[in-house]
């Protein structure tokens, strides 16, 4: 239902808007600056930071613009001596909670708190840092929560709840409710990193970010070969760190930048995605034909996998055992490719650039090892790679791109859209449909599973049967779908879950800020790459065909490189 159109005045400017919309939002839409910290479009209005205060003509006290709803004729003033004074006072209270470590912060030069503090001349020395001795928590190999930087806005607690995880909690410490990891044995971190991208002040970061990034490219020995592969979602987001628009395709620029850093080979994880599609479709079609372990659940998102293993172990049997794209490609590199190149695989170091912090957890899984080797040795996030580029004077905006190396540098379009919610399922359906019906899915685009809705449902007639599918955009939505399945096991046959909103493009390793608008642009970027590709189905990728013919004919090798297993998990993060 459309709300009533009204006119309000902000700083003397007449603005047409809808009745009931928050003043902060209206100001943003009209390019009027109101500082705010705790407000995030993904979250409920909590109004905890009290920085976005404005004056309403005719009223005495100040109002938070995030909660103030527009009414016909309302006159808003966004700056006055009174407003300045209140903002300054609150900012001084906020900065004295937050221990600054600006040189090593995910916000880098884009720190809103710092900008506000400077604009309102807040005195950093007025109070002693309240939390200077507060602890640093580490969640698995993925996340760091430095509670000495927290400003109690509670965005992380809310987003963790929204994800259906509830690992971040509040506990009273010296009479103040502080954010802490839960002591409840039934709650554990799944490493999605949504806390990180929703924290306005950088209290969360990936493990190693940015202290250890430079180490990864150091060669231990002279004859070590360094291969970097990067995930689909990285290419449409990393540009933001260099002033480019979200969604701008940086595939070749990343490749060029990595080469400048001295990397020996640059490969594309999208090719790995084509491998995953092949393996997953094979398993999935078999399950559907045999009516076994349905519904099939995708498993390329490691945070979702951890969620199932910890919170929903009864569904472990439903997870497809196909390995995730970068793990398969890493495995292929250290076996097939190493053999072809006559390189000792032990001398190969594979580094994945991922939009994700849970991938740092995934590569530590013992069951993924191939002949005692980890398929992937290190994971860096999109942000970490951007940091590395900047540190080495590489400006992605200016650099001239070069294609990725062969033979794993040219994916199908299906492999590229893996980074957006619905993309994994769309890729699989393109291949499965052809496999089962012998025909191409009409137009190849599967619009029903695209977009930013929380849950997307569709049905595909595969001839042998109608397959009901669901896409969960954000792990919080998966619970709803699993509840449906518990009631009706026939409700769906194939379900995609991505833990992060929007899929990997909204991942915990991506640049901040991370808003619905930015995510939509990143997703659009991926789909526009897909459309331009001649080859848009995994099985038509020539590299895939070659490896299947030359290497995967040996079923034992194929199983070892392309499939894995899962098991119930106990709580890993105890404090």
């Amino acid at each position, binding site marked *: 239902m459309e709300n009533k159109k009204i006119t309000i005045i902000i700083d003397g400017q007449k603005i047409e808007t809808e009745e009931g919309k928050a003043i902060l939002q209206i100001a943003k839409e009209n390019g009027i600056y109101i500082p705010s910290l705790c407000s995030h479009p993904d979250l409920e*209005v*909590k*109004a*905890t*930071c*009290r*920085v976005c*205060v404005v004056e309403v003509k005719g009223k005495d*006290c*100040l109002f*938070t613009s995030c*909660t103030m709803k527009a009414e016909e004729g309302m006159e808003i003033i966004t700056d006055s001596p*009174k407003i300045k*004074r*209140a903002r*300054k*006072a*609150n900012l*001084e*209270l*906020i900065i*004295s*909670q937050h221990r600054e470590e600006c040189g090593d912060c995910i916000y880098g030069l884009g720190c809103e708190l710092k900008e506000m503090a400077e604009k309102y001349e807040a005195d950093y020395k*007025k*109070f002693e840092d*309240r939390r200077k001795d507060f602890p640093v928590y580490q969640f698995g190999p993925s996340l760091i929560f430095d509670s000495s930087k927290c*400003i*109690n806005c*509670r965005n992380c607690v809310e987003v963790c709840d929204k994800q259906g995880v509830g690992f971040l909690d*509040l506990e009273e410490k010296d*009479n*103040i*409710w502080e954010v802490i990891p839960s002591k409840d044995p039934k709650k554990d971190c799944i490493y999605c990193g949504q806390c990180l991208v929703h924290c306005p002040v950088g209290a969360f970061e990936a493990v190693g970010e940015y202290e250890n990034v430079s180490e990864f490219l150091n060669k231990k020995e002279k004859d070590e070969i360094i291969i970097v592969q990067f995930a689909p979602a990285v290419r449409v987001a990393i540009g933001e760190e260099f002033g480019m628009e979200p969604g701008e395709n940086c595939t070749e620029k990343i490749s060029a930048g990595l080469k400048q850093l001295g990397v020996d080979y640059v490969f594309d994880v999208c090719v790995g995605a084509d491998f995953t599609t092949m393996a997953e479709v094979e398993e999935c079609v078999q399950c559907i034909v045999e009516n076994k372990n349905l519904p099939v659940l995708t498993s390329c998102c490691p945070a979702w996998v951890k969620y199932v293993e910890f919170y929903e172990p009864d569904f472990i049997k439903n997870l497809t055992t196909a390995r995730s794209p970068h793990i398969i490609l890493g495995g292929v590199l250290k076996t097939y490719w190493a053999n072809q190149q006559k390189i000792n695989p032990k001398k190969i170091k594979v580094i994945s650039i991922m939009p994700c912090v849970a991938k740092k957890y995934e590569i530590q899984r013992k069951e993924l090892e191939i002949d005692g080797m980890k398929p992937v040795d290190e994971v860096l996030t999109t942000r970490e790679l951007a940091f590395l580029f900047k540190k080495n004077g590489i400006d992605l905006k200016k650099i001239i791109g070069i294609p990725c190396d062969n033979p794993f540098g040219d994916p199908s379009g299906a492999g590229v859209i893996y980074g957006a919610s619905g993309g994994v399922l769309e890729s699989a359906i393109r291949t499965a449909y052809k496999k089962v019906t012998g025909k191409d899915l009409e137009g190849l685009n599967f619009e029903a599973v695209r977009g930013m809705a929380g849950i997307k449902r569709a049905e595909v007639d595969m001839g042998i049967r109608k397959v009901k599918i669901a896409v969960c955009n954000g792990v919080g939505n998966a619970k709803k779908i699993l509840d449906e399945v518990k009631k009706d096991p026939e409700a769906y046959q194939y379900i995609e879950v991505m833990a992060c909103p929007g899929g990997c493009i909204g991942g915990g390793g991506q640049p901040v800020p991370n808003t619905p608008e930015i995510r939509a642009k990143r997703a659009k970027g991926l789909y526009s790459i897909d459309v331009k590709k001649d080859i848009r189905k995994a099985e038509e990728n020539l590299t895939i065909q070659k490896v299947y013919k030359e290497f995967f004919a040996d079923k034992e090798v194929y199983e070892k490189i392309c499939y894995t297993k899962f098991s119930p998990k106990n709580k890993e993060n105890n404090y």
Partner: protein
Amino acid sequence: MVEQIIEKLKIAELKGRGGAAYPTWMKWNLVKEAHGEKKYVICNASEGEPGVFKDKYILEHYPEEVINGMQLAMETVGAEEAYVFLNKEYFELFGDRLKKIIGHLNIKLFKKQGGYLSGEETTLINELEWKRPEPRLKPPYPVTSGLFNYPTLVNNVETFYCASKIAKDEYKKTRFYSISGDTENARVFELPEDWPIKKILEETKNWPQTEFFVQVDGGASGKIFLSDELECLAQGNGALIIYDLTKTDLKVLMKKWAEFFVKNNCDKCVPCREGAFRLREMLEKDAWNNEVAEEIFFAMEQTAFCPLGKSIPGPFKTLLEKIWKTKK
């Protein structure tokens, strides 16, 4: 009867006795007029501020009137279910007796878990829903969307007591005053509501012989009045705390207040959480700075999330203005 009671409340000019002094007839009428499949009535017996103990007195002496007032409210607004929200002490003390009086009525007792703040009605509602005890964004107000988002009437113990008296035509425009502090005759008194504080203290033999000041409306958030400022009425929760000026250590007193707020606020918004913490810090470190404090007070008054946060500066500012400055 139901139609009459709202009219009677209006004529009696009864205002809420919890502190906010909102006209009772209007509140009842709003809940009555509100649309909802269900409606709730809640009696707020969470009294928790130092120096406020008149609800305890009423629950001890007139529990029948309170329950009767609730029953009237339920009939009037159309609520089938009600709660008495009691702090832990009152639950232990009066729970059994209240249950006997309630009998078959659909009124349940709820034992409060949280602190002082659950006196604030949206915080209380959150607690009843087993949510974190912190205030909700308003609007919506409880009268249209309260407990489980149904229209909800929340009134103080004394308000229900008065409503019962009004219905029976026994109301004599009195209110209950909690008198405490440096005085011999500290207890609860039921007196005419139009008596100025001076007359109350004199008539109850609580007018000190030495120099003194009074904190009006609660031993934490109440404002300070000097002995020559007492011709006014006590219209909030009726608490009067007397301090002997010669014996009271002002810093210790302010520290007590600050400590109370740090312990009992919900920590949701910056000015209240961090501001109260910094006030306590300055007092603990004996580093009180008026300029710094003034900016904190300004932020609290102008930007705090709920009435509690906005009320914190009251006692400090009046004490500093009226006594501290002249003493120094």
